[in-house]
């Protein structure tokens, strides 16, 4: 695997291979000295066109744990205002000879486009409303550690599916792992034709009890301003996942950051059935596994992990 651009590109075997690697890295995280020499001397560039605290820091920690040299590049604002095109920025950064570029961009397909302009391996850290593949991988990782195989499990994804790249990647990843996915939210925030991804659509939480896993999405304030829903109050009344709606056997997930009191009530966030913190932890080892896979994995043709050479591919 040379790039990670989308979940769509991966099959079940590919997902399982990455997650097995992540499981082996999870042991390292438990050690006193959390460092592996695998990517020593190789450069990883974080190119984030959108604000992100957890995804960027998670990638940064993952790369540093593998001993890569990490540079964060945030062109949002300044460079865009100066009028530099994405292509020019990428070609400029390619002159630094990075082994990998981790990119987040507000437009769908940006990561795939960038992969054609540079020799570096590309990791998609979110492209518009299209995909967020590492989030989906860490979600599958977290979930399988909690409940085992996803085969036959029922997973509900609740909230603003329309604007969610997490939902699009998760629907595909969960489905590939054998789960049955239902998306649920206000009809104005469920895109027409989403069933083509292999999920069911519901507009009410009435049957939420059938779910083994409830995955809630972040509800952004601006959706109210754009009149997708009449009011926050009405959204909460219809779609908040709370103690009344959630049953104790269900696992609760959220990609973060949580709006307490909006999509989730405070009590369920803090309940033992929530695996939200475990998702964050999984983020690091899964991203380590992804970087390993594309930069040091068997098919990349790169040097074996134990023998980091003077590598600047």
């Amino acid at each position, binding site marked *: 695997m040379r790039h990670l651009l989308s979940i769509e590109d991966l099959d079940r075997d590919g997902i399982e291979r990455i997650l097995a690697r992540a499981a082996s890295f999870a042991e390292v995280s438990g050690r006193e000295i959390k460092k592996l020499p695998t990517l020593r001397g190789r450069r990883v560039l974080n190119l984030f066109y959108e604000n992100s605290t957890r995804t960027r820091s998670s990638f940064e920690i993952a790369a540093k744990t593998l001993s890569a040299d990490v540079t964060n590049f945030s062109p949002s604002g300044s460079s865009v205002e100066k009028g530099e095109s994405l292509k020019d920025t990428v070609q400029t950064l390619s002159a630094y000879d990075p082994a990998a570029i981790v990119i987040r961009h507000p437009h769908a397909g940006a990561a795939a*486009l960038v992969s054609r302009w540079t020799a570096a391996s590309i990791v998609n850290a979110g492209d518009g*409303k299209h995909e967020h593949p590492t989030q989906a991988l860490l979600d599958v990782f977290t979930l399988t550690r909690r409940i085992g195989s996803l085969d036959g499990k029922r997973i509900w994804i609740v909230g603003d599916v329309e604007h969610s*790249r997490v939902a699009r990647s998760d629907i595909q990843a969960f489905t590939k792992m054998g789960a049955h996915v239902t998306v649920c939210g206000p009809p104005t925030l469920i895109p027409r034709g989403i069933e083509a991804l292999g999920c069911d659509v519901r507009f009410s939480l009435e049957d939420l009890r059938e779910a083994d896993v409830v995955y809630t999405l972040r509800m952004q304030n601006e959706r109210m301003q754009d009149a997708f829903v009449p009011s926050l109050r009405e959204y909460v009344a219809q779609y908040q996942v709370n103690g009344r709606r959630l049953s104790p056997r269900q696992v609760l997930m959220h990609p973060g950051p949580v709006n307490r009191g909006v999509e989730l009530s405070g009590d369920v966030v803090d309940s033992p059935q929530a695996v939200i913190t475990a998702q964050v932890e999984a983020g690091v080892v899964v991203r380590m596994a992804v970087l390993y896979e594309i930069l040091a994995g068997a098919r990349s043709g790169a040097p074996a992990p134990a023998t980091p050479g003077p590598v600047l591919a």
Partner: protein
Amino acid sequence: MTALHDPRLSSIDGPPADLVIRRAHVLDPNASIDAPHDVVVRDGRIAEIAAPGSAEAPAGTEEVDGEGRHLFPGFVDPHVHLRTPGQEHKEDLETGTRAAAAGGYCAVVAMPNTDPVLDSAPLLRSLRDQAAREARIPVGFMPAITVGLRGAVMTEMAELRAEGALGFTDDGKPVVEAGMLRKALRYQKLVGGVIALHEEDPSLSGDGVMHEGAVSARLGLAGIPSLSESTMVARDAALALDEDARVHFQHLSARESVEAVAAAKAAGAKVSGEASPHHLLLTDEAVLSLDTRMKMNPPLRTEADRQAVIAGLRDGTLECIATDHAPHARDEKDVPFEAAPMGTTGLETAFAAVYTELVKPGVLPLALVVERLTAGARLMDLPTPRIAVGEPANVCLVDLAARWQVGEAGYESRSENCCFAGRTFEGRVLLTVAAGNVAYRERSFAVSAA
């Protein structure tokens, strides 16, 4: 010299051609010809149509070998963007008309969404002067319906008509307010000229970048529903009927729109419609690649929509094929899909695309396609090119068997954003004569003077 084109068209008036095209299969549905002939062009006009090999031409007349080739009337495109003035980095009058000539066109009609917008008589006059110096084939102009395409105030249509405006359009944008369009349709009773409409309800299209459906849901791209187009077609057809006005619907893409046009015609409205090669050949599945050449407005829609547009073209609900040739510079298209401007080039590929994908498989008859490629003239109140004695020579010679890959040898257009890039087509234009002038010769096509 008497101009060999309509006075409202402008082009370089070069020396009128003297040629004899030997043994080509002449196919002109408008002149009811479908057989091999010799065609003699003298002083830019068709002087004789004779049995193959029998025409006598004066010494020195260029002989063109048409054996095994087809001679069609020159095509007329009622909808192109020549980007002049203001966006000459995308296209100009010279490159745009060169591309048109290479596609077999003998006349094109330029849209007004330039910078500045073509919305005043002085600007139209200067553009026509420029076209007389730069355009390889005759160009007609459609100025804006509303000043600055802002949808608020009518342009000075009477003065523009006197300066040669063929009709009016706010193409690129819809006339959002029904009341505004109604005023323009009423004013048409004074000034004449067709009102051509780009149909889109912005409250439905929003910030959409492709057709709304399964593909947009998968890609996470904002969608443009078919209703955005079809509801406006229905609304404006009702206005046209009520005002007895002449309205032309541009680049129709949705099944519901074709149905709305058919219903309006059945009710007696004087409306017409056009189909674009990309809507005839491609669907929104092509957008899965996120190739920005597949981004245009209206967007590529579903297979059912494509079939409806084909059926509409076949039964005459849509009278003509129009390319909506919309060049954009490479760096403008070399961006993520959502950030890219809408539009594909089309002049150089229209005939070959439709011939290869719809005529060869038997979906549409060749004669019908040739008629639809020339019908734009009638819709713009221009004389239809005909291969008949005494007519100005507007012809293109085509080798239907020649296979070529789109883009392999570059483009005549200044831009290369062609949605058919890389596809192999059959049907190569070898020679185009527009308004009696030789406007294009294919590079490898040898001609020999007698």
